[in-house]
């Protein structure tokens, strides 16, 4: 009996190791953690595997004994109950042995953790700010910053009953308009914070996940080994569109990264120039439509009809057909406690001018107004006072630093 028990235990233990391994081998990306592309992510992955196997063995051992007993000690097989109900020796053994196993798990875990928490020697810093529902990236050493949000096509497809064929997207819900671009081989320090509610910036392949807490900054870091595109998601419930807040990291070799930085700076210069010049009405409406599609359509809807009871229509809206002042105020500073947020820092003057012009001349609105970037600028200057005294639970800190 002892022998057959031993054999049963061994068999179950063997299965418990072989089966998961087979499964893991075949289905890697839908059933197990990614190995990732940083030293940390590889350590985490192997730690994960180690503890997983240990748990499998423990489980298998316990279940094997139990099922053997269920099989052998059943009344229908004529088993007579024993009467023992105590044994200090085994009690001590099965307290000490698990304890020892735990130490065996805690040791490597502590080592990895200490490595993760070593922030020293970073070579560049990116500040990441979570917004409902987009990310803002700020390259602190480069004077580059931009927003990143769910790609417009995905955004349209994910609307309820959109009827869009999802299979056409290779990375459904994991595509953004502006990816975070990073160089490989550098220790990059991330500073996490949020503008409204808690978010969490998570890229599995980098084994980086940190809560972005409004008013506080959290740190972590990554050193990416391989160029590639790495996708992740916001990992802390942050309201309505929490599920639609992806993260995409594009890791480039150093030279390509440098080229990207140069491009980005050039772009910024053009944008600055754009903001200085006079735009044509047509150009503003055309640009404004794009801005609208990327930023406003989620709430005010494609035809500007809004969602009654939740988001007001732009079509025929008093604001979009009324005083320009009020319209600027609404879009730049948002509306009190409503989901209508302040866009003054999120869009630049040209984009703001364009989208406002668009709203005033689309969806059947026919004000004929043309708003120039310079109008937005002078509105801003006139309004500096009110910006500075804008207070409230969520907006009391200087979230975007620059601007």
């Amino acid at each position, binding site marked *: 009996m002892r022998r057959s028990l031993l054999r049963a235990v061994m068999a179950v233990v063997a299965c418990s190791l072989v089966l998961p391994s087979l499964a893991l081998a075949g289905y890697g990306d839908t059933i197990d953690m990614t190995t990732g592309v940083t030293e940390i992510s590889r350590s985490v992955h192997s730690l*994960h595997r180690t503890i997983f196997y240990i748990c499998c063995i423990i489980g298998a051992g*316990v279940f094997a004994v139990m099922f053997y007993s269920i099989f052998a000690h059943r009344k229908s097989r004529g088993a007579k109950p024993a009467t023992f109900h105590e044994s200090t020796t085994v009690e001590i053994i099965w307290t000490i042995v698990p304890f020892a196993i735990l130490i065996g798990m805690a040791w490597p875990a502590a080592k990895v953790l200490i490595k993760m928490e070593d922030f020293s020697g970073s070579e560049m810093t990116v500040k990441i700010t979570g917004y409902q529902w987009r990310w803002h990236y700020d390259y602190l050493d480069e004077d580059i910053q931009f927003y990143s949000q769910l790609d417009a096509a995905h955004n349209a497809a994910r609307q*309820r009953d959109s009827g869009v064929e999802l299979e056409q997207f290779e990375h*459904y819900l994991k595509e953004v308009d502006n990816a975070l671009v990073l160089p490989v081989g550098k220790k990059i320090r991330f500073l996490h914070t949020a503008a409204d509610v808690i978010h969490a910036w998570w890229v599995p392949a980098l084994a980086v996940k940190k809560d972005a807490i409004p008013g506080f900054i959290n740190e972590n870091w990554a050193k990416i080994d391989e160029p590639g595109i790495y996708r992740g998601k916001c990992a802390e419930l942050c309201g309505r569109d929490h599920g639609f807040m992806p993260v995409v990291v594009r890791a480039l070799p150093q030279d390509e990264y440098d080229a990207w930085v140069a491009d980005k700076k050039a772009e910024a210069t053009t944008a600055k120039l754009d903001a200085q010049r006079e735009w044509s009405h047509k150009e503003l409406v055309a640009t404004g439509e794009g801005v609208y599609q990327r930023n406003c359509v989620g709430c005010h809807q494609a035809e500007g009809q809004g969602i009654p009871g939740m988001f007001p229509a732009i079509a025929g809206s008093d604001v979009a057909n009324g005083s320009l002042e009020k319209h600027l105020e609404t879009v730049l500073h948002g509306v009190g406690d409503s989901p209508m947020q302040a866009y003054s820092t999120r869009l630049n003057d040209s984009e703001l001018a364009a989208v406002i012009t668009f709203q005033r001349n689309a969806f059947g609105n026919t004000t004929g107004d043309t708003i120039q970037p310079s109008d937005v600028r002078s509105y801003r200057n006139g309004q500096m006072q009110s910006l500075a005294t804008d207070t409230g639970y969520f907006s009391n800190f200087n979230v975007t630093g620059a601007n």
Partner: protein
Amino acid sequence: MSTAEAHHDDHDHHGPAPGFKRWLYTTNHKDIGTMYLLFSLIMFFVGGAMALVIRAELWTPGLQIVDPMFFNSMTTMHAIVMIFGVVMPAFVGLANWMIPMMLGAPDMALPRLNNWSFWIMPFAFTVMLSTLFMDSGGPAGGWTMYPPLTLQMGDSFAFVVFAIHFLGISSVMGSINIVATIFNMRAPGMTMMKMPLFVWTWLITAYLLIATIPVFAGAVTMLLTDRYFGTSFFSAAGGGDPVMYQHIFWFFGHPEVYILILPAFGIISSIIPTFARKPLFGYDSMVYATASIAFLSFIVWAHHMFTTGMPLAAELFFMFSTMMISVPTGVKVFNWVATMWRGSMTFETPMLFAVGFVVMFTIGGLSGLMLAITPADIQYHDTYFVVAHFHYVLVPGAIFSLMAATYYWMPKWTGNMYDEKLGKIHFWVSTIFVNLLFFPMHFVGLAGMPRRIPDYSLQFADWNAIASIGAFGFGFAQLIFVWVIIKCYRGGEKATDQVWEGADGLEWTVASPAPYHTFETAPEIK
């Protein structure tokens, strides 16, 4: 029962009052227990229906059925209903029914208070569920209600907070009653170390409740004042911290999860010896293990917060302390297996559910252990791996223990045997589907699917479809359960006093169904 004291002669042998007054005014622990159990059964279907909304939406990628906001309020309300409306009241119901009988007491220590503890529940849940019908919708910030997100909620927020206060009053009063009953109402000779384990685990659970529910009440009170009175507990601008809420919440929240499992341990510790026809192995160590789990549960809370940016030393501390809980929990599992070892086992429905509990709870416990490993948890956190973990300990854990308890004690409650065949079918269907439902969640979680999302990437489609099939299968299997209960209530083979061949304990010495009043005169304890 015939040697009653003079001064309540007139009340003696007095049965239940007629009509609805019996239920409204009752001070009888059995009536109150029954009401608690029925209430939680109904709420199980309410919370389950919400889960089915979730699973229906998640059946395939894309948003088909509900708005994301409504989805969030479904997950939130599902969890609140299941925890506060199903598992907790069900355990209190069992405590009401069984503890006085197990101790040889005439009733609970404070029968009127007992009535109140129950009759708060329906009112409190009316407040809670009514928020779903308000313009601003129900709570949608997760059952953990983290600020600042929760503070963005509309008008219904105040009602949610008050419903929690209301429920808290019920829980604390109920727990105080249980503590007083256990310490003060034992029959002569029923020493502490002779008490059935169900009583022990409840005693310790009651302490967890008394110690943590008020902390939870404090936390939501601070949310309320932040929202309506301009305090800044959880706002950095005013010198507070959103993470402070998380610390206070989890100081309650972690012991809470043991509140949801310790009485289950007690139930399983009653059932296994009965059907193994062998005394429980290691009674003393079971008691000490329960106490250790309860003690440890107060110093592990921040394992829910490994990504919030705690200092390294804190992360290490909470990792180690959390891992330690596996030791006393392991002792329990080993003791159950040792109880079965060389027993003479039969597998009636309660035993099936108990064995299912041991296996699947252990799976859930082991994944909990994996979550405790901080560097790995940073990857697991807020993914479906966590969802898989806690459903394994809660559904085939806590819920299975409740089903085991129902089958085990139902003959004592109704006087009739339940339909064994249906019971077994119920077990097997539930077990198969519950694994289809929750096992794939481990996979998608590890592969990177976050929790609390109404829509997901295509790579997770297959496993989610399987989980949804499992959910509907498991859900509808519970209709069998309801049918078995109704059938058993209506009639069936008469149960003997002892009911089960191997059953041992005072509750099995009284008639089946248990008379309205038991042990008005204390029994002799050998």
